[in-house]
């Protein structure tokens, strides 16, 4: 095959094995997979950008809300205490408590919120068919880098384990903020379903390269 004749813009390369495929218009609900390793290359969901934007906005609101509502209620030793996530982060304990709580807060609040904001910034103008904002490519890259570091779903399991461990010492009940975090996990699952990096980059690229 004469490689010089290939137009790169008509190609999709598999990110996992580098195999070249012909890019083409995929119909709604269809998935394009790598012929060699099966990796999903692109998918098309109806109104994908709308839905992604909706999940990002919902997430940002839920994260902000989860900060201020009681997360957990503790009854023990004759006292009853309800704590929000902000209480938990700002109740500076001794020793390693503070650094540890700050790291955890980054994973479950700061990073998810930054990621949702970056996605909103990227997708908002696209949803209305307008040109992306300045730096949208950078924002979207940033959102993708943050993805594995956003750990709400792991935290939920952590809370459940903590409740089992604490059962002997105090009576604990879950507050609205816990259920908000749980809702975030469900929204993230929906987001994953609608997420096609390739399509969003194509849309972004149409504007930046023109």
């Amino acid at each position: 095959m004469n490689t010089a004749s290939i137009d790169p813009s008509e190609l999709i390369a598999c990110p996992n094995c580098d195999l070249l495929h012909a890019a083409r218009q995929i119909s709604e609900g269809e998935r394009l997979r790598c012929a060699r390793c099966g990796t999903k290359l692109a998918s098309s969901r109806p109104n994908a950008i709308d839905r992604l934007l909706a999940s990002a906005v919902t997430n940002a609101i839920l994260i902000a809300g989860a900060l201020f509502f009681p997360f957990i209620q503790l009854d023990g030793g004759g006292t009853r205490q309800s704590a929000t996530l902000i209480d938990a982060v700002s109740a500076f304990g001794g020793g390693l408590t503070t650094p540890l709580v700050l790291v955890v807060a980054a994973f479950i609040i700061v990073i998810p919120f930054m990621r949702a904001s970056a996605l909103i910034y990227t997708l908002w103008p696209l949803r209305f068919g307008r040109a992306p904002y300045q730096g949208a490519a950078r924002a979207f890259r940033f959102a993708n880098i943050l993805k594995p570091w956003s750990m709400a779903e792991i935290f939920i399991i952590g809370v459940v384990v903590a409740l089992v461990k604490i059962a002997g010492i105090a009576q604990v009940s879950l507050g609205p903020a816990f259920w908000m975090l749980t809702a975030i996990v469900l929204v993230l699952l929906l987001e994953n379903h609608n997420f096609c990096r390739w399509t969003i980059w194509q849309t972004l690229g149409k504007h930046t390269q023109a």
Partner: protein
Amino acid sequence: MDNLANPRKTYAGLTARKAGLIACTTCGLVEHPREICQRCGAALHSRDPQSFQKTLAWLIAGMIFFIPANLYPMLITNTFGTEQKSTIIGGVIELIEYKSYFVALVVGVASIVVPLAKFAVIGLLLASIRGRWQSNPYQRLHLYEITEFIGRWSMIDVFVVAILAALIQLNFVASVNPGVAAISFALSVIFTMLSAQSLDQRLIWDSMNETSNHE
């Protein structure tokens, strides 16, 4: 046009590298060789030249921090004046004693089995790349993907300790403090995640391409 309509159409098993092109790992654009991707601005490499070293360096860092994570206490509990220290394994055994078998299983797998398996898999993948293995590239890629997907879940125990410490300091009956192991373990998980992310999966397939394209 007929070709473009066929999802199975590949360029005769041609990879971007063989075609003299570079695929951007960040946005997927296939481009003629250049320094920076013209669509997303990420650095463009046919294969990340530092992938092997970075993966190995983060892996070693992750393994080193795994040692204090298991030797030192994870949790220091003070109930009615009695101090009790528990390590990661100690915490799992305690859960078994309380007959919380399922929770013990979850914590044990996340804190001990997953990190060890992850070290082994990344080590194996590095060996396979260096040794130019040609067998089972699909299985190796699959192992890599599972590792990347599951590695983050090791963070459970760190979250548990942070939640207990933050909660119980609001209460004066007991006090709970994280031990050195909590921070060491968090760092071990972070470094191992960075190690997996540094691996350029395309390297797994390169030794295959050498033979299959020499027809």
